[in-house]
C-alpha cells in the first residue's frame, strides 16, 4: 500500500506542477498581449519586388465552398504575372473537379488545377505531389472554405523578405459565427488562440504555429527539412516543428486575417478535435526529443515553448491522472503531503488557474473590440468539457503515439449554402473587397 501511496503522491504533484506551468503560460501570454509590445515587423512592407508565388488549395469534396475561395483569390492585389493558383483535387466524389476545370478554362494560366486520382490520400500527400511541379520561391496554402481578402496575399508574403523566416501564419476568423451555440463558442476560442496565444508567441520570439492554412512556407526551407511528412495527421504542426528545430523562424501575422467556415455540428467539431489531437500527439512523440537536444542552438525560451506547445493535447490526460491519484490517495487514507500548502494550492487553482483560459478569451475579445460576445463566455465551459473528453479519447489511442496507420482524407463537413463572394471579371484584377 505504501508503494501505491508513494507513486500516487508523485503522480499527483507532477500533474499539479504541469498544470501550474500551463496556467502560468496562459496568464503570461494574456498579460503580454494586454500590456506588452505588439510585434508586427512586416506589416508595413507595402512596396516590394514581390516574389513568384503559388497558392495551393487542397480540395476533397468542396463543391459547396470552392468557388468562393477561388473568386476571392482571383481578386487579390498580388501581381498576376507572379501568382499561380493551384487547386488540388484529390479524389472528390462531388462536382469539385468540374468546377476546377471550368475555372481553369475561364482563367487560363492563372488557375492551374492539379487533379489527383491515386497515391496516398490526405492533404500532406496531395500537397507534396502538387508542389513537385513548382519551383516558385514561396508557397501559400488555403483550405477550400477560406476566403482571403484583397490584401492578404501580399501580407503573407512580406515576411519572406526576412531570410530567417521559413513559414508564416495568418489569423483565422470564423465567418458563420451566428449559426449555432457551437459556432459562437468557436469564434471565442479562435479569438483567444490567435489574438492572444499566437501573437504573444510572436511578440516574445517563441514558436508561433504554422496552422496548415492562411499561411505558407519558403520553398527551399520546406525542401531543406525534408518536405511534407506524408504519414502525419497534423502536417502543419509537423512542419512547424521541423522548421524550428532546423533553425528557421515561424512568423505569425495577426493583421493577415482570413475568413473560414467553422464546424456547425458537435459531431464534426469532435471529429476535428480528434484529428488535431491525434496528429499533434504524433508530432510530440516524434520531435520532443529533437527539440530538447536543440542542435540549432535555439534560445531556452523557444525550446520550452516548443515543448509546451507539443504537450497541449496531453493535458486532459494529465488532468485525468491527477484526479486518479487524488482519489487513490483519498481512499488509501493518505492525503497528499504538505497539507496546508495543498489546501492553499487547490484554493488558488480554483480561483485563478481554472479561469486562465477564460481570462485569455476575454482579453482577446477586448483586443478585438467586440464587447457583447464576451457574454457567451460561461458557455465555454461546455466547449472545454467536450474538447477535454474528445482529446482524452484521441490521446489514449494507439494512433496518437505510434506509426503505421492508414492515411485517409480527414476533413471537416462544409455547411455553406449561399455564395459569399462576387465572381470577379475574367483575366483582370478586381479592386474592391469581395465580402458581401
Amino acid at each position: 500500500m505504501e508503494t501505491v501511496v508513494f507513486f500516487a503522491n508523485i503522480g499527483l504533484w507532477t500533474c499539479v506542477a504541469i498544470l501550474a506551468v500551463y496556467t502560468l503560460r496562459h496568464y503570461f501570454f494574456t498579460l503580454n498581449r494586454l500590456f506588452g509590445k505588439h510585434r508586427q515587423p512586416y506589416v508595413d512592407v507595402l512596396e516590394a519586388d514581390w516574389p513568384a508565388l503559388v497558392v495551393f488549395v487542397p480540395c476533397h469534396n468542396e463543391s459547396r465552398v470552392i468557388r468562393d475561395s477561388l473568386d476571392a483569390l482571383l481578386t487579390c492585389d498580388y501581381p498576376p504575372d507572379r501568382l499561380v493558383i493551384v487547386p488540388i483535387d484529390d479524389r472528390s466524389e462531388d462536382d469539385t473537379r468540374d468546377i476546377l476545370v471550368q475555372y481553369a478554362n475561364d482563367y487560363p494560366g492563372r488557375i492551374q488545377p492539379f487533379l489527383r486520382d491515386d497515391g496516398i490520400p490526405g492533404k500532406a500527400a496531395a500537397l507534396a505531389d502538387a508542389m513537385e511541379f513548382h519551383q516558385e520561391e514561396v508557397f501559400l496554402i488555403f483550405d477550400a472554405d477560406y476566403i482571403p481578402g484583397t490584401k492578404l496575399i501580399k501580407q503573407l508574403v512580406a515576411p519572406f523578405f526576412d531570410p530567417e523566416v521559413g513559414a508564416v501564419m495568418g489569423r483565422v476568423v470564423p465567418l458563420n459565427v451566428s449559426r449555432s451555440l457551437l459556432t459562437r463558442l468557436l469564434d471565442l476560442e479562435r479569438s483567444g488562440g490567435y489574438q492572444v496565444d499566437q501573437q504573444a508567441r510572436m511578440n516574445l520570439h517563441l514558436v508561433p504555429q504554422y496552422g496548415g492554412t492562411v499561411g505558407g512556407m519558403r520553398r527551399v526551407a520546406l525542401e531543406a527539412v525534408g518536405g511534407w511528412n506524408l504519414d502525419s495527421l497534423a502536417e502543419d504542426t509537423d512542419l512547424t516543428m521541423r522548421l524550428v528545430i532546423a533553425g528557421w523562424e515561424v512568423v505569425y501575422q495577426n493583421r493577415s486575417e482570413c475568413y473560414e467556415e467553422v464546424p456547425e455540428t458537435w459531431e464534426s467539431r469532435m471529429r476535428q478535435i480528434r484529428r488535431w489531437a491525434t496528429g499533434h500527439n504524433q508530432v510530440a512523440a516524434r520531435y520532443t526529443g529533437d527539440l530538447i537536444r536543440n542542435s540549432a542552438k535555439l534560445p531556452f525560451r523557444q525550446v520550452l515553448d516548443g515543448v509546451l506547445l507539443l504537450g497541449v493535447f496531453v493535458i486532459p490526460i494529465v488532468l485525468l491522472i491527477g484526479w486518479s491519484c487524488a482519489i487513490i490517495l483519498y481512499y488509501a487514507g493518505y492525503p497528499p503531503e504538505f497539507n496546508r500548502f495543498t489546501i492553499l494550492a487547490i484554493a488558488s487553482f480554483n480561483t485563478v488557474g481554472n479561469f486562465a483560459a477564460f481570462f485569455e478569451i476575454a482579453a482577446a475579445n477586448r483586443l478585438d473590440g467586440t464587447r457583447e460576445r464576451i457574454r457567451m463566455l460561461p458557455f465555454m465551459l461546455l466547449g472545454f468539457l467536450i474538447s477535454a473528453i474528445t482529446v482524452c479519447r484521441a490521446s489514449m489511442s494507439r494512433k496518437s503515439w505510434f506509426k503505421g496507420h492508414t492515411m485517409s482524407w480527414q476533413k471537416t463537413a462544409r455547411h455553406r449554402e449561399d455564395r459569399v463572394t462576387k465572381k470577379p471579371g475574367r483575366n483582370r484584377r478586381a479592386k474592391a473587397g469581395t465580402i458581401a
Partner: protein
Amino acid sequence: MTLILPPWVAFLGVLFLMLLWLFLPLIPAVMELVKPKDAAPLNAVGSDSGNLTFFAESFTARAQREGLFNDPVPEKLADGSPVLTHSTAKPLPIQRKPFTDFVVITDNARFAEGTEFASECLARSTLISVPNTTFRTLLGVQDVVLAQETTMLRWVHVKGHLEVASNSRLLGRATSEQSITVGPQVVFDRLSAPVIRVGNEEVEMSPVLPIHAYERFVPDDGRLLAPQYYRIDDDFTLPASRGLSGSVVATGKVEIDEDSRVTGSLKAHDTLIVRAGAIVDGSVTARGPIRIEDGARVLGSVISEEAIILEGAVIGAPGHPATVTAPLVRVRVGAIVHGAIIAAKDGKTVV
C-alpha cells in the same frame, strides 16, 4: 417568535440559492444566445490597410461624382455643403480662422501665408503653396510644391511630382504617382512614390560589379539552413571588397564592410550595418537598429524592429520597388528610395 423551517424546506432553499449562484453568469450568456447582439463575423478585411492611396482614390472618385473637375466648379456638393474656389481671378479671402469648406484650387494662384484648410483641398493645376500653410488633405492633379513649415494633417496625394520643403510635417500619408523630393528636417509617417529623394544632393555611388568580380567569401563558422542560406550563431562581418553568394542570418550583429557585395538577403538579431559602397541584392532585416551608409545600395526592403538610419544610400531600383520600415526612421540628405518609407512612430529627414 422564532420561525423554524422543516429541514427539507431549508435544504431546498439552500439548493435553490446554490443553483441561482451557479447559473447567475449564464443569464447574460443565455440572453446573448437567444437574442444575439454581437454575432457578426469580425471585420477582418480592412480595405485601407496596405493601400496608401486608398483615401486619395476614394476622394478622387467623389470629386469626379461631384463634378469638381469640371468648369465652372459647382458651388455646392450633393449633400448641400458649399464649395470654395480659389483662383487668380477669384482668390480666397484672407482670414485667421481655418477654411472649413471644401476648396478647389483651379490655377496656380497663391494664398496668404499661414492659411489653414480644415477640409479637403483639390488642386487642379500645379500648386505652389506658401510657408506655414496647414492642409487637412490635399489631392494634386499636377505637381505640388509645399513650402517650408507646411503641415499636412491626414494625407496628400499628387499625380505629378511632390516637393516638400524643410521643416514641414507630413502626418499620415504622402504619396505621388511620379516622385517625391523631401527637404531636411521634415517629419513624416508614410511616404510612397516610384522615387523618393531626400534633398537634391547627389551622392557618389560605387559601381555595381558582377559577383565574380569580388573576392569570394564563404562563412566558415556558419551552417547551411538550405542551399545558400547561412545561419551564424554569433556576429558576422563580411570583409571589405568581398563577395558572398547567398543569404545570411546571424544571431548577433551583422556588418557588411565597404565595397563588398551580397547576392542574397541579410538578417541580424542585433544591429546591422551596411557600410559605404556595399551592395545587397536582397533585403535587409534586423531586430535591432539598421544603418545604411553613404553610397551603399540595397535592392530589397529594409526592415527593422527598432530604428533605421538611412544615409546617402539607394534602396530599391527603378521597376524594383522596396519598403523601408521601422518604428523610428531617420533619412539623411542624399538618400533615394524607390518605393515606400514607413515610420510607425517617428520619421524625420536630417542633414
